[in-house]
């Protein structure tokens, strides 16, 4: 071994020593489970029995032939789409409002952001109480006008609406903070130049603010999709996926198949399905992001 290689070897050993624990944990609990999930999806197993029965693709065939599965896919789409679109709209409005030179706006930004940090299970309980159709805040409020509150526990539409509203209330502040940072980054001379050219308020919004914010908006949309897609605590506490599967989404179904019904095979299939969807979304995001940077 010559003289040059000794420091190089030492540097390499330092690198390995410094990263080994981090990388090992990430491999053991992030990458290995993906392989394990694929493996589980090919077997019939109840998590307890010492024997797993190999069934090949049968779990997949059964899952994709099941009407409930497609209802769950549809629910996931409806939930994600409505949550994300409402969240982005609210976040955008909040960001515009809280970028105005108003007294107390810093404090308000804090208030708006706070729900993002709170426990989803706790928030779900608070909204359960608010939406309680006998004694909740909404019922009490509507009572003043002699209107009956819709039932969020038994009506499929209102059950979905209830969890969407809760999600939007919890997530909008996160998007707002990011969009506020984005608004601060816009070059002010653009607005001045546009004002000289006679652009009105609406024109400035459409032709300067929104295009300049595009990367941030994309970020908020993508994190919103990933967040909504993964939300579990709010659904578990508020609706338990009901009534009659009306709010059963992929991640909730994964929990149900795995830890209520103890069906490892279908749970493995769902693991693979969710991962593939997430992967496609991430790749799409990277491609759109790259195109934005290229322009």
């Amino acid at each position, binding site marked *: 071994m010559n003289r040059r290689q000794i420091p190089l070897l030492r540097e390499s050993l330092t690198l390995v020593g*410094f990263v080994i624990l*981090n990388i090992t944990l990430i491999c053991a609990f992030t990458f290995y489970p993906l392989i*394990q999930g694929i493996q589980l999806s090919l077997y019939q197993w109840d998590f307890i029995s010492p024997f797993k029965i190999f069934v090949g693709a049968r779990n997949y065939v059964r899952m994709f032939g099941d009407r409930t599965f497609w209802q769950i896919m549809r629910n996931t789409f409806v939930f994600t789409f409505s949550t994300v679109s409402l969240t982005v709209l609210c976040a955008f409005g909040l960001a515009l409002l809280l970028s105005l030179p108003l007294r107390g706006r810093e404090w308000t930004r*804090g208030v708006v*952001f706070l729900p993002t940090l709170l426990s989803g299970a*706790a928030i779900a309980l608070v909204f359960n109480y608010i939406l309680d159709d006998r004694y909740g805040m909404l019922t009490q409020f509507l009572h003043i006008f002699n209107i009956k509150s819709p039932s969020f526990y038994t009506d499929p539409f209102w059950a979905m609406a209830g969890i969407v509203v809760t999600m939007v209330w919890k997530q909008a502040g996160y998007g707002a903070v990011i969009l506020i940072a984005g608004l601060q980054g816009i070059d002010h001379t653009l607005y001045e130049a546009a004002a000289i050219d006679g652009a009105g308020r609406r024109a400035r919004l459409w032709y300067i603010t929104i295009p300049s914010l595009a990367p941030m908006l994309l970020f908020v949309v993508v994190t919103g999709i990933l967040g909504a897609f993964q939300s579990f605590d709010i659904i578990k*506490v508020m609706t338990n996926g009901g009534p009659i599967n009306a709010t059963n989404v992929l991640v909730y179904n994964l929990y149900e198949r795995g830890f209520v019904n103890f069906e490892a095979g279908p749970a493995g299939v769902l693991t693979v399905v969710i991962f593939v969807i997430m992967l496609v979304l991430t790749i799409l995001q990277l491609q759109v992001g790259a195109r934005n940077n290229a322009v």
Partner: protein
Amino acid sequence: MPSNTRPRISLPQILAYIAMAIVIILVGLPLIWMLFASFKQTDEIYRMPGTFFPEQPTLMNYPAAWNAVPFGRYFANSVITTVVATASKMILALFCAYALVYTKAPKWLKDGAFLLIVAALMVPGQVVIVPNYVTMSMLHWADSYQGIILPNAATAFGTFLLRQYCLGLPYEVVEAAEIDGASHWQRLWLVIMPMAQPALVTVGLFAVVSEWNDFLWPLIITNTNEMRTLPIGLYRLYQTEGLQNWGIIMAGTVFVVAPIVLLFVRSQKFIIEGIAAGAVRG
């Protein structure tokens, strides 16, 4: 020209202030409702028409909630898992980020390690629960602290954030320390850690919030009161009290939410700046 010293408030400004007030009410109301209900007596909660402000405030719901389920134990479990997982995440991420930026190991080795981190960013935590549960029960670690903590003991996101932050630090300082004969260990603790503190604090705060609120993983990995964490315990309280006593349930909710609210009040600037920085860079 005599200028008007009093700033004049225009109509759009008034509208903006009204909008801001509405925002504060919409966001704050659920939390106020929770807090007020926790001070209401049972018969006041189940009255039509009801009240908004508690008429005869009582503190009774708090001890009632605390004793209905073993909240003391849940609290301890939440503190233990949150502190250990957060400390582990911060230390492992700092070491990893330092090594990826400052060691002179061959490029393929550093790039390979970094690629693993970036790839892990794309795997969402909820996807891997079923296989991780199988692993943990094979190791007989279901319903144990290591079972709750280990899958959350490392953070790809935090490592990524710290690495990006280190890349933005002046490299000369580390070089100067190296010329002075400081080892990697010394450079990491005495030079980089103080300089990377803002990013490190952000990683820590994110970890605290996500551990404290984590619901799905502790729900499946714990099955006794000795191991349950606060959010799971709160859910148990809800199941035992059912729809019978919202006052007690809201008091339990305050137990879970209050520590995070206090943390936020103390470190609001760090959290909000950290979020914005993460988005700008990511």
